[in-house]
């Protein structure tokens, strides 16, 4: 069900929510967090809401979409409430602020009265994020701030900002996209021969913050020289090589779909390793509401990586 409340206020929205709960049965009870989605008003809103709805199946939440409309307009708040089939396992409140209400502080002022009592608040910028998320008006309301450098107009610059302004509680989806890679690499080191890694090479697209971040993680965890090289082919991350005295462990993904794990003296092993979609990443992000120290450490590790120029050939 979708209820439109044009030219409204947050107290009217709150009243309507209570009314919907009384007439329509249980809503908003048992929600575990409030997810605030901050975006510009436009076509992208729906895909962000869809991602939030699919994540809400795992983490029932109230989704507040703060859509910033025209700044050169009269002050107006158009609200919309979606519940039931139109909102997955969540309830969605879309707040479209115009004129002065499209600015940061008034935006946060509209969100605050709608936050669930006592439940954690997560802010998510599906597109362009503020340079300092923790200093942003919405970011200050939230325990966890999720950004996505890859969806920014300039991913490299956005990633640099993340590194420069990281505080506990920030994460970026470039990190989430690496989880499968990291899990496979960690699992490979769980088994014999138990040897220390002497150096590592990480290759990927020239513009790929995830590749930089994986190199940073390895550098931070292993404390050895890690080289970040461009790759001859493939999108995003394409290969990792961990050198050990008995021979390297290699994880290669030339086509963006299938990974090959190669270890000395063992047959090549194939594994599905597709790039992950935003809903999948968001669900993983919401699984933990405490700061991700490992991510913070990986960001600092980026400073220590060596840059290679020669493209690494990626083939199976």
């Amino acid at each position, binding site marked *: 069900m979708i209820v439109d409340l044009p030219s409204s206020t947050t107290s009217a929205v709150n009243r309507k929510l209570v009314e919907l709960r009384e007439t329509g049965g249980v809503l908003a009870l*048992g929600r575990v967090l409030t997810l605030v989605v901050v975006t510009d008003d436009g076509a992208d809103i729906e895909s962000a809401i869809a991602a939030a709805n699919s994540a809400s199946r*795992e983490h029932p939440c109230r989704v507040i979409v703060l859509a910033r409309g025209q700044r050169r307009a009269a002050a107006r708040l158009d609200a919309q409430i979606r519940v039931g089939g139109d909102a997955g396992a969540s309830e969605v409140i879309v707040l479209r602020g115009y004129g002065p209400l499209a600015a940061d502080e008034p935006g946060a002022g509209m969100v605050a009265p709608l936050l669930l009592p006592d439940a954690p608040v997560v802010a998510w910028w599906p597109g362009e994020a503020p340079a300092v998320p923790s200093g942003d008006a919405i970011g200050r309301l939230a325990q966890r701030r999720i950004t996505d450098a890859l969806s920014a107009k300039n991913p490299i610059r956005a990633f640099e900002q993340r590194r420069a302004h990281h505080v506990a509680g920030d994460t970026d989806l470039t990190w989430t996209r690496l989880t499968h890679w990291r899990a496979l690499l960690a699992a490979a080191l769980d088994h014999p021969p*138990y040897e220390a890694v002497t150096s590592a090479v990480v290759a990927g697209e020239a513009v790929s913050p995830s590749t930089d971040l994986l190199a940073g993680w390895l550098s931070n*965890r292993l404390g050895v020289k890690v080289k970040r090289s461009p790759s001859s082919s493939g999108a995003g991350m394409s290969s990792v090589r961990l050198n050990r005295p008995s021979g390297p462990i290699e994880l290669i993904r030339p086509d963006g779909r*299938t990974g090959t794990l190669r270890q000395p003296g063992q047959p090549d092993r194939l594994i599905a390793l597709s790039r992950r979609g935003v809903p999948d990443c968001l669900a993983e992000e919401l699984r933990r509401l405490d700061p991700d120290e*490992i991510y913070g450490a990986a960001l600092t590790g980026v400073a220590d990586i060596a840059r290679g120029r020669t493209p690494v050939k990626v083939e199976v």
Partner: protein
Amino acid sequence: MGSGVNAGVTRASASTGASERDWTNPLRDPRDKRLPRIAGPCGLVIFGVTGDLSRKKLMPAIYDLANRGLLPPGFALTGFARREWGQEDFGQVVYEAVKQYARTPFRQEVWDRLAEGFRFVQGSFDDDDAFDRLEQTVADLDRIRGTSGNHAFYLSIPPSAFPVVCKQLARSGLSAQDVEQWRRVVIEKPFGHDLQSARELNEIVDEVFPEDSVFRIDHYLGKETVQNILALRFANQLFEPIWNSHYVDHVQITMAEDIGLGGRAGYYDGIGAARDVIQNHLLQLLAFTAMEEPTSFSSDELRAEKIKVLNATRLVGPLDETTARGQYTGGWQGGELVRGLKEEEGFDPNSHTETFAAITCEVNSRRWAGVPFYLRTGKRLGRRVTEIAVVFKRAPHLPFDATMTEELGQNAFVIRVQPDEGVTMRFGSKVPGSQMEVRDVTMDFGYGTAFTEASPEAYERLILDVLLGEPSLFPVNEEVERSWEILDPVIEHWAAQEKGPDPYPAGSWGPESAQQMLARTGRAWRRP
């Protein structure tokens, strides 16, 4: 009980060479909660792969695990059955099972990688040649897929076939393990039909596999809601202070099914509800509900506490009054005309097999002294439900007139294990109005409706734990034998009676004798 369990059991993985003990994986960190534990290189061999369990539960679970990225690269699945299938037929069967029953969306690239590791070996259990071919297949997998000699054998077969399969596994060398490679065996209930047979069964399996390589599946323990009992009790301050005989009046553990036994006569006749459900599922639920807090969530500590509470558990007598058994009769159930047990195909019209069983236990510890635990299970009951209801004593003093609290019952805390997983609390609340009147209301936590859509199915969790060598969710030998010790007197008592089980109409909540059993002490069963 997520990471805590895993942290405690790294030692359980197969090879325990000196170098492994000294090795700390630099890429792992307890704070890195995103990293899942992926099983090491390994393969799974399923015996009885043509069965229902295999198609409906095991194959979909394996696909779902692969889809979640929790299986190792190069994972292999080998089917063993008598059916005259080629490799492609087997692949096709798995494909259809996955399409129909998997919980995660179908992804071609995941399927392609998984399907490369499928093998099928045709043969019967007494066929030496077939097991030699299986041994060959497994060795080939080590070479081609890199399963590194780590294999689990899932015996989805009747217990009568265990001796011959175990013997074959030993003869062909398939069960041989060393520090470099592990071999594990997974067995399903029934673990015998009384203490004697359980011991014999354990001996047969233990001859071939050491106890720490034997994984007994009780799929209830793989359910999120059952694991959540520990979280509810031990992660909160709210419940544990009242979780004892000072406040608890009694506990009811129910597992009800609305289906009958059509088509399962071969297995069920002569077994009955008590052996089928109480011995394993319900006594395990009792153990989770009544156990003391383990010092840690490592599998050893957890099992120690479970064994302790099972050792303290006794039947309450006299059994004539504290137990009840029943057999469903035909009639209209939920708009459908159903047959009674005695008319079901394959059942002896004079069958004494019970389809409803209820017993009374007590836990002899300071915490629980005097609190009866009522366990009941049955087929063709009102609806399909499993729950644990902790019913509290009435408040010692009510500063109200009797008329004000007429409609106030006992407070209750109900853990709904399935379906509609969650927790319900029942307590009294004032009825709005100018008069003081207190009536029961419920507060509901819908764990199931909201959380579980993306949470793993019980078999997923359990299969992964087998591959990881993580034993805490599997009952050990001692628990199985102790459970039989608790239950055996009831079964013997019933067997000695001339009179068979009491009839109860299909769709009801059991025979009159079950109601009597509680009414004797002024209590009544909850309607779940």
